């Protein structure tokens, strides 16, 4: 039992992967867990037959098959036949040292594969930045929704910074977040399905079309804003995800306007779009002004010239962003309102 003792030391390290219990089942205990994970090292008949050829990491997936033998009769039959030529390597694999080494190798491979995937993913999607945008809580969400729907009485629009980075949205109501846009987007899709259903215009493709269309318009809007920011060459602390967040806030207005249209038909809808469009435009102008317009006066470059930082261009950019909000809100929801039967 000495090999069990040495492998027992590694037991806590290997514990997190729950597969250890499953894959060493001998065929007589199909479908049940063996309570002692290292017991079946003495008798691994199924382990022999199909992992003699392929290297150990491949042995993971076939070793789940013995558990599913009642369902998959065919593969079990394949694995049940022992190719006679493999008897010697199988006896080698009976040696506990080799199985331990094989399992360690497989573990290392899985771990490094996972690391590589995480690294590659981290290059394209900034995961930690994403976490910042979802650090919200209920009071923030309610206050923010109230602010989006009625921004005219809010007085302090500045964002508190902490070591060159904005404070988390949880503590700062003026910071953009991605939770509200995401939820509003999903609600918009469901609401579109509901409205079209109430007008007997529904079919399941409609949901997909609306989702895709709204996402495409969002991507287009963000790309146009990014290109505009680059071309007119203004410095701003706006990041891409900020622009995505600001683009997603319009769905809140769309949802409320469409709900109004349920009750008040056309007039209610247009009034809703006008009001929420204006509110969102006001909100965006106030918020972006802090980030895009210079705070002080004109800046000085090393030559002592007064470089006016293009405040006219910044203003145009703000106006452009603000004006396309009501237009896009109308474009995305106009087909949803019911035509009152004459």
């Amino acid at each position, binding site marked *: 039992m000495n090999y069990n003792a040495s492998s027992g030391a590694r037991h806590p390290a290997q514990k997190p992967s729950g597969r250890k219990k499953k894959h060493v089942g001998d065929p007589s205990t199909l479908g049940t867990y063996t309570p002692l994970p290292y017991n079946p090292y003495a008798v691994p008949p199924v382990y022999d037959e199909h992992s003699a050829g392929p290297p150990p990491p491949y042995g993971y997936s076939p070793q789940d098959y013995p558990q599913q033998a009642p369902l998959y009769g065919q593969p079990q039959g394949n694995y049940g036949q022992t190719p006679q030529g493999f008897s010697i390597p199988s006896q080698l694999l009976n040696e506990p040292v080799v199985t331990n080494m094989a399992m360690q190798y497989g573990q290392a491979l899985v771990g490094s594969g996972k690391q590589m995937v995480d690294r590659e993913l981290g290059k394209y999607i900034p995961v930690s930045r994403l976490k910042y945008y979802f650090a919200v809580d209920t009071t923030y969400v309610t206050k923010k929704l109230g602010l989006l729907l009625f921004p005219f009485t809010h007085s302090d629009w500045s964002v508190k910074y902490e070591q060159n980075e904005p404070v988390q949205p949880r503590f700062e109501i003026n910071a953009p977040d991605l939770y509200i846009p995401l939820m509003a987007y999903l609600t918009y899709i469901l609401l579109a399905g509901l409205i079209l259903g109430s007008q007997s215009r529904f079919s399941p493709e409609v949901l997909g079309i*609306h989702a895709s269309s709204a996402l495409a318009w969002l991507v287009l809007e963000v790309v146009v804003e990014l290109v505009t920011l680059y071309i007119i060459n203004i410095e701003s602390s706006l990041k891409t995800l900020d622009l995505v967040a600001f683009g997603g806030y319009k769905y809140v207005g769309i949802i409320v306007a469409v709900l109004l249209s349920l009750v008040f038909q056309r007039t209610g809808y247009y009034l809703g779009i006008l009001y929420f469009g204006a509110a969102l435009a006001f909100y965006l102008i106030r918020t972006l002004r802090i980030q895009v317009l210079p705070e002080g006066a004109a800046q000085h470059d090393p030559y002592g010239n007064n*470089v006016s930082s293009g405040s006219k261009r910044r203003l145009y950019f703000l106006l452009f962003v603000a004006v396309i909000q009501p237009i896009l809100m109308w474009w995305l929801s106009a087909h949803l309102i019911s035509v009152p039967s004459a």
Partner: protein
Amino acid sequence: MAITLWNLYEASLLCLNAICVLHEERFLAKIGWSAHQNIQGFGEQPTIKNQILNLVRSIRMVTRIPLIFLNILTIIVKLILG
């Protein structure tokens, strides 16, 4: 009305193709739109025209190779699915 993601992808592919076929010497220099033709001073702000031309040149340089694969992929998909 419905601009799906596929439509957006097709449109952006066509636009990128259009930007990439603008030849630097044969065409843009004749119009006077070749990048860095009017080198500006250090302290000046880049003009809008320079920024656009820089953007075009960067897009051309970066997307030339991936665009080949994307075009092949899109052609195959359109052949299969019509």
